[in-house]
């Protein structure tokens, strides 16, 4: 059994389709608060008998139902991702947290990636990415840039090194 700040006990849920209750809402808020100021995350993936990690920029839907990452076509991560869709995104607040490691919060997102081919949605995602990452304007506008959506299956919210909360969004 673990506790969140107001000492309200929760049981980490491993079941999918758990209706959203006050506790999951709280974790969702915490995750939202953390990633709001984070512009980059680590994309972890596997394939071709190898593990792989890469720092990527991202944007996301306000309700955390979808994350989007832009990748250069033909890059190593692009080629792995079109073959193996199960990925993990790692985000943390090291850059904004106070010096103590105990203040560092992290999020692990496990999800499934899909190459976005719908032109209308691509245009929308492009604008959203530019808004969040103005410096990437020429990159995301390039025809050699592709967009992957990642649909989260499970979030892990980690605080004080070892306290871990799991949130599985309702599907």
């Amino acid at each position, binding site marked *: 059994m673990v506790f969140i700040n107001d000492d309200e006990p929760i049981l980490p849920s491993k079941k999918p389709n758990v209706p959203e209750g006050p506790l999951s809402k709280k974790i969702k808020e915490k995750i939202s608060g953390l990633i709001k100021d984070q512009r980059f995350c680590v994309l972890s993936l596997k394939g071709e008998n190898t593990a792989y990690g890469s720092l990527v920029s991202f944007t996301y839907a306000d309700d955390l139902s979808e994350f989007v990452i832009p990748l250069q076509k*033909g890059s*190593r991560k692009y*080629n792995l991702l079109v073959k193996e869709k199960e990925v993990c995104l790692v985000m943390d607040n090291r850059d904004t947290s106070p010096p103590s490691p105990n203040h560092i919060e992290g999020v692990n997102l496990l999800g499934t990636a899909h190459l976005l081919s719908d032109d209308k949605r691509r245009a929308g995602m492009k604008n959203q990415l530019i808004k969040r990452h103005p410096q990437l304007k*020429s990159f995301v506008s390039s025809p050699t840039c592709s967009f992957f959506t990642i649909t989260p299956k499970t979030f892990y919210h980690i605080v004080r090194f070892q306290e871990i909360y799991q949130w599985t969004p309702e599907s």
Partner: protein
Amino acid sequence: MDSRKLTLGLKEAFNEEASLLGAKSKNLAFVVSRGFNVPEGLCLTTEAYDLFLEENQLREQIFAEIHRKPLRKMRWEEMWDTSLRIRSLFLQGTFPPKLHEALSREVSDEGLKNGVSVRSSSQKEDHRLASYAGVHETLLKINSRSELEKAIKIVWASLWSDVTLLYKKELSLNIERSKMGVLIQKMVYPTCSGVCFSESPIKENSNDRKNICLVEVVPGECRNLVDGILEPKQILIEKENLDQVSDFELLSSGEIKHLGEITNSLEELFGHPVDIEWCKGDGVLFVLQVRPITSGGLFKKDREKFWFIKLRPKKEHLWDLAKKVESELIPKIKERGEQLSREELDRLGPGELQKCLIQRHEELKDWQEIYKNDFIPFAHGVRQLGQYYNDHVSPEDPFEFTGLLKFEDLEATKRNNSLLKLTIHLNKSPSLKEVLLEILKENQSVSEFKRVHLKKILKNEQGKAFLRSYFKVQKKYLDVVFDFSRLIERNDLLGKHLLNLVEALDGTKEMVKSEGALDLESKLYNAVGKDREDEAREIIKLGRLSWKIRDDDNLFLSKIEAQLLRVIKLGLDFLNLEIDVELGTTPIEKLVEGLSLALLDPDHRGPFKEELQKINGEAELKKKKKSVQAFQLIGQPAAPGIISGEVKIVLSVEDLGKFKAGDILVCKAIQPQMTHLLPLASAIIEQRGGMLIHGALLAREFCIPCVNGIPEIFEQVKDGDFVTVDGHLGLVTIGTPDI
């Protein structure tokens, strides 16, 4: 609520910090507060600059541009490209509504009717250690609100100009720090203007310089002096004897005395020697700028190192240069090349050969100097066209204007078209093609069509007509140098190239016709309006001429170089120096000097041969340097498109004959002598960077991707490597993309 101070009247600003006003406004606000005449002004603070950046999310985009590659690795041309992209970002940015309101309030319609000047006032300029003199923009005679907002954007953007970046690079200043204030002033239409130095910077006055003021005067505006349009008249004044000055053309003795007094007072007030810009309007002497005297300016100090600063001649100079280059220098260099190539040299003795060698070497050096001082600066016409087009059209792609340039008239295009005709000729006659294949197979290193080869070709039905055309093309276009070899002597390479072209005839790429140019012209004329259409037409004309000449001049200069090489080869033959040296790696000065001595004195022949071999050995050693293998390299996205293929490095003349259809051309920089390879190339990678260099523009014309500006490219790829060239993003990925 945002409490930022966006604007401040010059009269009220003297208590504010330079960090808010920028140094120029701060200095002038102080001068106003002490009762000197300064044209009425309004300061736009650095907070206004911040607001613009924030509302347009520009800071991140600027940093993405300037950090595309380390500044120390950027050539000046790449800095110019970077600054053009940044300037476009500024011009496309939306003017903050709050600032728009403030300007509407502070700058009256009446004031605009008279015209205003918009001047830079960066935090760092006018400092004792780094004056940034002449580095940032000033725009004059602005008289509409839309022009005013555009002028402000241009002045802000000049914080990131090529010269500013260069300045910061050379002084190792922090590239990210610094903000730009702007000073808007009522226009004064002066009868004369100039600068005053409170200590004379003239060398002859060095013993007594502290006691001597120097006044420089030009008729009209001060930019006539600052931009070097007019030579100023100089007046020296003894500080202690101001009463002893006399009238001097544009200024009365009283006015000269008054200028001396102003300068002395300002030196005292600022506590160090100053130079001031001044002007005289309606009989009043105004102070336009005050700054500490620095030691001559960074660029003036090291003229040789920064010679490329001359590559930004002003519009007035460009037109003079155009006339000189087009009607005087180009016909002269062309004619001279042809004259030299006609000269009979085969029967010259050693003394005559030596004389000819020295003469041709001297002549080449003279032309190289002209190339540096006139031809290269004239190439700036293309840059001026780019800036003008972007300032008025604000296109999404800052290099859209290159579509206005025409390629049809270039000498290299004419040559390529002639080669294409020869290819078609060859393709129509399979038997002739067979003969050529046989000859080239017989002796891969054949350097001349030997008599026997000629006979074989002539025996063919189509042979005579083919050879006639072939020699015509050769004589007209190929007496040029590539990698220190005369192409006219390398029929084997040309033969191989023609066969490669035949093989790929259906798939060769052609230049895109310049129909799009008409659309771009209309776009520009609409943007500038009817009143300025003629001006736009002139700038397009200048840009096109400059582009044509920058390509042709290389070929004409190369022809002069070929004529020197001809004598060198004859000299080496005469001395029976059949040594295996790569002439291209041998410094020309050493080669000419050694050969000259060896021709005159047999005792020098041995040491000359040894020297050549030594130099060649050193060059070989340099070539063998290796480093860590890269996976992906970043350069300039010079022409869009993405393609994968095999690398073919073209450095030596031998490489010209090995280039096959579909190869990715990797070279130091595309030269006009090698553009005949482009119809076969699937992409270009150049070591040298720049969006307006030959390779970049030609790749756009041929619609093939180009990435340039990768200094380490030759360490990282070799012939046959599989690479992916992403011309949209400026990336070269080495190895198969699928891991």
